[in-house]
């Protein structure tokens, strides 16, 4: 089950040096950030509540306290390092994600139904270059939906991945996923050593 090896050329040789490092735009959060975030969450939660209850007025007895509580929780949280979603990256990520989750499900379904049940399970570790916070969380959650991989544990900067078939090219698959997530968050990709 070799996948496209666009991220790691020369797979048969020694493991290639990881050539890229991703850097969050280091803009410090502006002073009004907390209030702005509070207002945005307030509007978003109110809209969701409205659509969920079909804008029934009597549902607001529960809705208003719930919305205020939710937005207050967001207000109390520390301001995360600034990240944004690139719209073009998001569209291409969503399409790619849909295709990958279908491939992952078909792959595991075939193994489950096959009388021989072809499995060669095992663990591998992988050190992502993605910065912590939202991109890292996104990475961990998406690993599980890729064909044959499951994020099992985080040990420091490494992710322990469980694979249904350890012969698959983990570096190429997760490298491709990292590049997708970097594009989704509009991260700069710098050659390592140039900074």
């Amino acid at each position, binding site marked *: 089950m070799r996948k496209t090896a666009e991220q790691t050329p020369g797979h048969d040789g020694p493991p290639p040096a990881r050539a890229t490092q991703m850097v969050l735009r280091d803009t410090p959060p502006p002073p009004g950030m907390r209030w702005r975030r509070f207002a945005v969450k307030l509007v978003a939660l109110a809209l969701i509540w409205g659509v*969920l209850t079909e804008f029934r007025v009597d549902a607001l007895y529960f809705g208003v306290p719930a919305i205020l509580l939710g937005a207050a929780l967001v207000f109390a949280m520390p301001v995360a390092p600034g990240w944004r979603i690139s719209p073009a990256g998001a569209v291409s990520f969503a399409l790619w994600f849909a295709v990958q*989750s279908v491939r992952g*499900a078909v792959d595991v379904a075939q193994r489950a139904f096959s009388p021989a049940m072809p499995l060669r399970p095992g663990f591998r570790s992988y050190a992502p270059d993605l910065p912590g916070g939202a991109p890292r969380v996104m990475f961990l959650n998406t690993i599980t939906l890729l064909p044959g991989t499951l994020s099992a544990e985080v040990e420091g900067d490494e992710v322990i991945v469980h694979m249904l078939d350890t012969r698959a090219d983990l570096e190429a698959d997760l490298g491709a996923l990292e590049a997708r997530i970097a594009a989704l968050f509009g991260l700069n990709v710098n050659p390592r050593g140039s900074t």
Partner: protein
Amino acid sequence: MPDLIPLVSAVLIAAGAVFFIAGTVGLLRFPDTYCRLHALTKADGLGLALIALGIALTASSFGEVFRIALIWFFVAVASATGGHLIATYARRVDRAEGKEGS
């Protein structure tokens, strides 16, 4: 062709059911916790997505479609996160019992 939508919807829901069955077969047949998690997170996840899509096609209002999409979204996030937590716990148990998986 007004008859096409219920047909497509039925096909999607049936396909979703097949993936749920695949997930359950995997849960029963696969040898350990980790492999079973693969079956549940991936096959059942797609099963739910297909069924949600099939139902959304026959929904009567935008609110209904939105609610179905919310259900799918939260289940998808919860299953990926839950799968990770169960695997982490299983590894801790394995280590405590001294059978470190390769």
